[in-house]
């Protein structure tokens, strides 16, 4: 058994166990952390498959940004999780059924074909480039139009999400930092000249 194979089994086992604990641990924060661990182990597996860009992008996007926001929300939640978990056993058969159907569909879509046709050699290696360079060439030279369309759709989705959730409430107090910075002394204080007067004395 080579060192790489040992690594693969180790990371795959960690990913599997972590994925199982995501749905089985009691504490929601621990569950979110297990999801982080799953992502991380999968990134390691991808690194072993020499897909270094995908692996680092997974860590950067999902572990570094998405899961932080997820944790953020989970920590602020004050949900009684024992109540949520009450139906776990009752709904388990349905859940298993859905999972099995999904697995079957996935296998039909990708599994069967790849099992029959032998895996082709790494195209990046064939082109004599690093994985990253090859991806760049493919995305920005061969598939530029689909790439641009995909990014356009994502931008539209982003703007739509913002406009759907943005509420303009009336009566809220908003500070405008640019105005605050531009404020001058004359706007805030008024100097009043007064003659000094002793107590009981009438001002001249």
């Amino acid at each position, binding site marked *: 058994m080579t060192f790489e194979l040992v690594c693969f089994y180790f990371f795959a086992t960690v990913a599997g166990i972590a994925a199982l604990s995501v749905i089985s641990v009691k504490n929601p924060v621990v569950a979110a952390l297990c999801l982080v661990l799953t992502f991380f182990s999968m990134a390691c597996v991808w690194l072993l498959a020499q897909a270094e*860009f995908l692996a680092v992008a997974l*860590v950067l996007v999902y572990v*570094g940004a998405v899961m932080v926001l997820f944790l953020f929300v989970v920590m602020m939640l004050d949900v009684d999780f024992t109540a949520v978990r009450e139906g776990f056993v009752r709904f388990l058969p349905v859940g298993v059924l859905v999972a099995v159907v999904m697995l079957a569909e996935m296998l039909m879509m990708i599994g069967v074909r790849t099992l029959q046709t032998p895996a082709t050699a790494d195209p990046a290696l064939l082109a004599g480039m690093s994985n990253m360079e090859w991806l760049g060439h493919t995305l920005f030279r061969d598939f530029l139009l689909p790439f641009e369309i995909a990014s356009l759709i994502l931008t539209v989705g982003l703007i739509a999400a913002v406009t759907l959730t943005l509420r303009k409430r009336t009566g809220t107090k908003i500070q405008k930092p640019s105005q605050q910075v531009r404020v001058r002394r004359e706007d805030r204080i008024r100097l009043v000249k007064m003659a000094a007067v002793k107590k009981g004395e009438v001002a001249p």
Partner: protein
Amino acid sequence: MIDAMRDGLLGYGDAGLVVWLLLKVLVIAVPVIIAVAMFVYWERKVIGWMHVRLGPTEIGPFGLLQAFADVFKLLFKEVIRPTTANKFLFFLAPLIALVPSFAAWSLVPFDAGMVLANVNVGLLLLLALTSLGVYGIILAGWASNSRYAMLGAMRAAAQTISYEIPMGFALVSVMIMTGSLNLSEIVMAQAGTKGFFDWYWLPLLPMFVIYFISGVAETNRSPFDMAEGESEIVAGFHVEYSGSAFAIFFLAEYANMILIAFLATVLFMGGWLSPLQGWITADVAWIDWIWKGGWQWTFIKAFCFSFFYLWFRATFPRYRYDQIMRLGWKVFIPITIAWVVVAACLKYFGLVTIGA
């Protein structure tokens, strides 16, 4: 001597290789730890001078051993765990904060070929590793089961994610200029004959400024230290930590600061290249690194950048929280997006070329 040592160790097979790698890691990690200790001393001295005080003077000559006295004090203190804290996460959090900040050091090139991990996707990996550090802060805040700590963690998480975006764009512009993600190649792309005008600070000036400011915000340092904000939330996420657990947070924060200083050097200030490159070509033993470039320049430049951290801290008052968010989202991100396009045009029309 080093070559002989390596060959000797590699002669023992796989075990020798492991020992050799461990030695290489230690050669970077131990100086980082000592640098952190001395940097704390230097910080107290510099801020003291800026406040017209003396700073530490008592322990050792000029107070030089003050940092070590502090370290030993922290190590011998009792580590107290709040009774309602989540035990496992409470002690895991400092480690999660520490590991990414040290792992990122393996990617820093100090001189040509003097780098522990010469990775092809180095820049992306760096971004990924620095973004992992925030988990330590969030977990520390949550596991402490304290309101102040929780508020500090929330602030830190929001701030780090916001400032990662302009930082990422600054890195993207460097990638566009270089056409590579390898940090050593990025430095070599800044070589040329026009001295320090060949470095990327000139074509990417707004990015350079934004990168460093975002770096200060990312490491939660003054004036962006909202995560700690003594006057508002006591000490933020590490308010419940004492002794060595607190020392680990401290170590991670300072290691990150020095790392950002080194990265600003490598990405925008030509790393180990000399500011006089191409102007003098004489061969003189011992001092020709001054114009030919060498690891000394990396350290000199990084020292200047880490000094800026202290200067900022002594000079600027703390930002208000909404102003931090405004600066990140409404000022930095639009500027960086526009400058990525400018950088692409500079590259496309040949105004900036690699290594000339």
